[in-house]
Structure formats: structure tokens, C-alpha cells
């Protein structure tokens, strides 16, 4: 393991696998020292928020919005109840990092949520975990019990006037609940359909009260940022791209895994850490930030670095940090059809362009794969995608449209071949 790996969210990773998730293990790496310091010294929350701003931590769920800035939107002086909500509804295809944070280092998430609560004036937090995560839910609940028993959560903590209660909320299988306002609807016991914004959650969020929603990895990064300083975190990455980040490298690699490495690490190095392309094949393409972002041809990726700004330059987005590697010999029409089916299934049905359009995309691609594609289907796909993107309440519509446009741009000949010959250019997936 390189020296600069596993320095933040995975900092308990080197400990005994049987106990690395316990309070004792977390304490052994410096855990809860920041929360205890806050309880003792009651620092000015703005000072803490500034530290997070300095770190250039950007939202790790996919949107990449600066976390410190998001916190500063909260009307802290308002007497209303305020909430901090953690988005552990991890479900962006290719992404499997938050699950491992909760399995291997749940206390750091708890400490991060408590600190965030203090910064934004929230005395109650909810961790929204997807329902399928039985094991991470049990781990997180166990950690909550330990933290309550140790007096780290609850009322008048360590004799201070500070309260913080934290609860687990269980989802039940809906990708859309990873969208922050859909998640709030779901927390309120409703269908997870995104809200029209404004008002933004910082004004009217959970139960109509000011609320901040952050991703699991973002919140779990906070204790280390306060311990080592925002400047340290920033310097781990690049300007405007602070810190290490978790990358879930999956697909056609020899050793798929999560890697916590500095932002700005060359993709070539990350691919090597994952054992290279599996089966000795050549690299064909990479979806560098979860299934919702544009695909990038392999040769472009090999000269790109893994940070928000570099990936943007390469024509895609860093998103959630899910790096899906596709080897030579894979039919790109089939890959796109898989993605299209996902979005058609997960569209919440609220906005017509997305509800209808995602189904169209999936059906047209199925028709092509069945050998019944028509020449005009390529334009039809492009046209339908163009009529979804930017025309919906939330980003799921864009997420369904972007892959289509990028696959057509880079692999148009495969679609054309399929239409013309009735069979894919590349047979084996």
C-alpha cells in the first residue's frame, strides 16, 4: 500500500478486520478527539466551517458541491429545529464506497455528522441508509449504541449544553432517493419524488425545517479535516480539488476494489492498483464517475488525472468516483442498453420527459439489439436524449441522457454496424 493511501475515510483499514469498526479501534486512530474538543471548547462554528472551506472538500455523492459553502447556507441563528441528514442511499451503478465506510469505519461517520450538526446548528441527525444494506445498517446501529453508551451522543454531552441525537432511517429500494430532496420526501414517509427548488433544503428541508444533506464520504472526511487542518487536506489533492477521495474501480479489472487516493492521481496509476484490465485485454472505455456521466475512450483516460477539473476537461465528470472499466471486446450498444434500462426502471415518474423518454431510449436500444434497428434510430436516440436533458425537476433525466449522447459520439460506428447488419460488431460482452 502506498503511503498516501487510506488516510481519511479508510484510516482504520489497517487494523484487525474483526474489530476495526469498533469504538475502541476508532479511538486508537484519534477518533472522537475533534468532537470532544468541540464539546469542551465550543469553538465558533464559522471557524470550523472556514476550515472545511479551506480544505476544498467537494460533495462526494456525485454533484461535487463545496461542502463548507453548503453548510454556510444554513440560517444558524433561526430558532427553528434544524437537521443534518446523511445520504447513505448509495446506488449509483458502479459506486460501492459508502457501504464500506459504514462497514469498516462507522464511528467516523458518526463523528462527522455530530460535527456537521454543531456547525449548522442541528441537534438532530438522520442517516438515510438504503434498505438492502442489512450488514452496514447493523454495523452503523451497533456503532450508534456504542457512541450513546460512551456519552458521545445524546443530551448535554460531556456536561456541556450541547445536544446531538442521531438516528438511522431505512430506505426500501429506490435509486431516486439518492437525490437529496427525494430523500427528504422519503424520510417524511412518502414516495421519493424530488421537490421543485427553490426553496432549497437550507431554507425548507426535512419537515419544512432548515436541513443540510451531505454524502456519507463527505461527512466521514470532516473529523480528519479538523484534526489535520483544511490546508493539509487541500494539499493532499489539487487546488479546488482538495483531499484524497474514494474510487470504486469495477468492471473489467483484475482486482476491483475501493481505493482512497489523492485527487489528481493519474488514471493510469489507479488502473494499475486495480491490477490492470482483466484477461490481458486492451482498455476500450471508462465511465469515470458512476453510470450517469459521459463515457470516455480509453486512450483519453490514460492521459487523464483523477480529479474533478481534469475529468471535466476529458469531457466527463468525476461524479461519485465510481470508475467503470470496459475492456476491448465489449459491445457498447449492449452497455448503453443496460444503462438505459436502469434509468427507465428508476425514473420516479414525476416529470413526463424522463418518465416517457427513459422508456423510449431503452426500447429503441432493445430493438437495435434484436436486429430490428432502423437507420433513423441513431438520430431518434439522440433526439429523445436531448428532449430529456435539462427539462426535468431533478438530474435523473440528465443522467439518463448524458450516457446516450456520449456513447453515440464515441462509438457511433458500433450502432451503425448493428443497424446495418442486424448483429453487433462486437459479439462477446
Amino acid at each position, binding site marked *: 500500500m502506498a503511503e498516501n493511501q487510506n488516510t481519511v475515510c479508510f484510516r482504520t483499514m489497517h487494523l484487525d478486520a474483526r474489530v476495526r469498526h469498533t469504538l475502541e479501534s476508532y479511538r486508537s486512530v484519534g477518533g472522537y478527539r475533534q468532537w470532544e474538543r468541540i464539546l469542551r471548547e465550543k469553538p465558533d462554528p464559522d471557524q470550523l466551517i472556514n476550515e472545511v472551506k479551506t480544505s476544498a472538500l467537494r460533495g462526494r455523492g456525485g454533484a461535487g458541491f463545496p461542502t463548507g459553502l453548503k453548510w454556510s447556507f444554513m440560517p444558524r441563528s433561526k430558532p427553528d429545529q434544524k437537521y443534518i441528514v446523511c445520504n447513505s442511499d448509495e*446506488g449509483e451503478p*458502479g459506486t*460501492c464506497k459508502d457501504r464500506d465506510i459504514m462497514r469498516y469505519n462507522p464511528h467516523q461517520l458518526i463523528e462527522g455528522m455530530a460535527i456537521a450538526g454543531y456547525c449548522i446548528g442541528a441537534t438532530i441527525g438522520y442517516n438515510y441508509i438504503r434498505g438492502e444494506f442489512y450488514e452496514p445498517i447493523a454495523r452503523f446501529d451497533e456503532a450508534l449504541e456504542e457512541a450513546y453508551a460512551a456519552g458521545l451522543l445524546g443530551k448535554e454531552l460531556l456536561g456541556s449544553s450541547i445536544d446531538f441525537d442521531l438516528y438511522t432511517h431505512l430506505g426500501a429500494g429506490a435509486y431516486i432517493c439518492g437525490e437529496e430532496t427525494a430523500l427528504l420526501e422519503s424520510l417524511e*414517509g412518502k414516495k421519493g419524488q424530488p421537490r421543485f427548488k427553490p426553496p432549497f433544503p437550507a431554507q425548507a428541508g426535512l419537515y419544512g425545517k432548515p436541513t443540510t444533506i451531505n454524502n456519507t464520504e463527505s461527512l466521514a472526511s470532516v473529523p480528519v479535516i479538523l484534526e489535520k487542518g483544511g490546508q493539509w487536506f487541500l494539499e493532499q489533492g489539487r487546488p479546488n480539488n482538495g483531499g484524497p477521495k474514494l474510487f470504486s474501480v469495477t468492471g473489467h479489472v483484475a482486482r*476491483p476494489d*475501493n481505493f482512497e487516493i489523492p485527487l489528481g492521481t493519474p488514471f493510469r496509476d489507479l488502473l494499475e492498483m486495480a491490477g490492470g484490465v482483466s484477461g490481458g485485454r486492451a482498455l476500450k472505455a471508462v465511465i469515470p464517475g458512476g453510470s450517469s456521466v459521459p463515457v470516455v475512450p480509453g486512450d483519453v483516460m490514460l492521459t487523464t488525472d483523477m480529479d474533478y477539473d481534469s475529468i471535466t476537461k476529458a469531457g466527463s465528470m468525476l461524479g461519485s468516483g465510481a470508475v467503470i472499466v470496459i475492456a476491448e471486446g465489449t459491445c457498447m450498444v449492449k452497455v448503453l442498453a443496460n444503462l438505459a434500462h436502469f434509468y427507465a426502471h428508476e425514473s420516479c415518474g414525476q416529470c413526463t420527459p424522463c418518465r416517457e423518454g427513459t422508456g423510449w431510449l431503452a426500447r429503441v436500444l432493445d430493438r437495435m439489439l434484436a436486429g430490428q434497428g432502423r437507420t433513423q434510430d441513431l438520430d431518434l436516440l439522440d433526439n429523445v436524449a436531448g428532449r430529456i436533458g435539462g427539462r426535468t425537476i431533478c438530474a435523473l433525466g440528465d443522467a439518463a441522457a448524458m450516457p446516450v449522447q456520449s456513447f453515440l459520439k464515441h462509438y457511433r460506428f458500433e450502432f451503425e454496424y448493428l443497424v446495418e447488419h442486424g448483429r453487433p460488431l462486437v459479439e462477446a*460482452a
Partner: protein
Amino acid sequence: MSFRNTPLAVIQDVDKETLLTPELRAEIDKHVAKYPPEWKQSAVMPALTLVQDHNGGWLSRELMDQVAAYLDMPETAVYEVATFYAMYDLEPVGRHKVCVCNSISCMLGGAEELMHHIEKKHNVAPGGTTADGKLTFKEFECLGACRHAPVVMVDKAYHECVTPDAIDKIIDDLD
């Protein structure tokens, strides 16, 4: 505002002590306690999950109505939730649920082959239940464990890097 931020509270004229079972009510109450008193409906999802588990894996209309009455919700609001989320089943299911993830990383890892294997070997299409009532077989969207593709969720447990041989053994070991 395009959304309602007030609870839908509808108090139904029913003795709550007659609803569900005492054990289920106690479990649901633990979830209700997490939310503001006027927002009992926040517990509807965990409540439906508990009731479904207790009822052999599926929710009948009568049970959904009881959850509605217990949480002071309109019945339709509970149906909306139960029909929206993928983990609820509204028809009887097999003794076990075998959910194969077929999102991108699992597909690249061989999920389709795995699904065809299950389909053929157990003569069951995705969404269906085997004739002996042992399995309900589902194609699932991303289970969030992509580094162990392909992933199969059997009841409440994830199985990782599953091959056709491995799934045979897993299914054989179920009662």
C-alpha cells in the same frame, strides 16, 4: 411550494391494540420514536418492512391498511409508498427471494449468464416464483457492492463474486 410539508395525519376510528401483533407494534414504536411526534408517518417504510418480513415476505392490502391505521395515515398514502419502493412485494412470494444485480458493473462481471443459469435450472423467469414455492427470482438494480460483481442478495444476505456453481450451492442450502 410544490410540496406539502405537513403530515397527512388521519386518525382512524380503530382500537390500535387490535392492529398487527403486539411484537410488531413494539418494533414499529421504536422507529416512530425517532421522529417528531406529529410525523409518525416517517416510520411507514420500516413499518412496512417489518410487517412484510413477518408475513412471509409480502404485503397484503389488509396489512397495509393496518399500518395506515396504526400510523394515522390515509390508506392511499401507504399504498403509494408500498408500490413505489422495490423491496416491497404485493403478491405472495416464495420462501426465499433471490435478487440478482444486473446493473453495469455486475453485467460486465457476468450477471446475465448467472440470470440465464437460474432461469433455466429452476424454470423461472425474473419476477416469478418457482413451482415448488421455494424461490422468488428477481432482477435487481444496483445493489451498491460493485467491487464484488456479480452480486446476489438472497433474503437479507449479500453474496459476492457469484458464479453459476456458487449460486447452485447457495440455493441448494436454502430450505
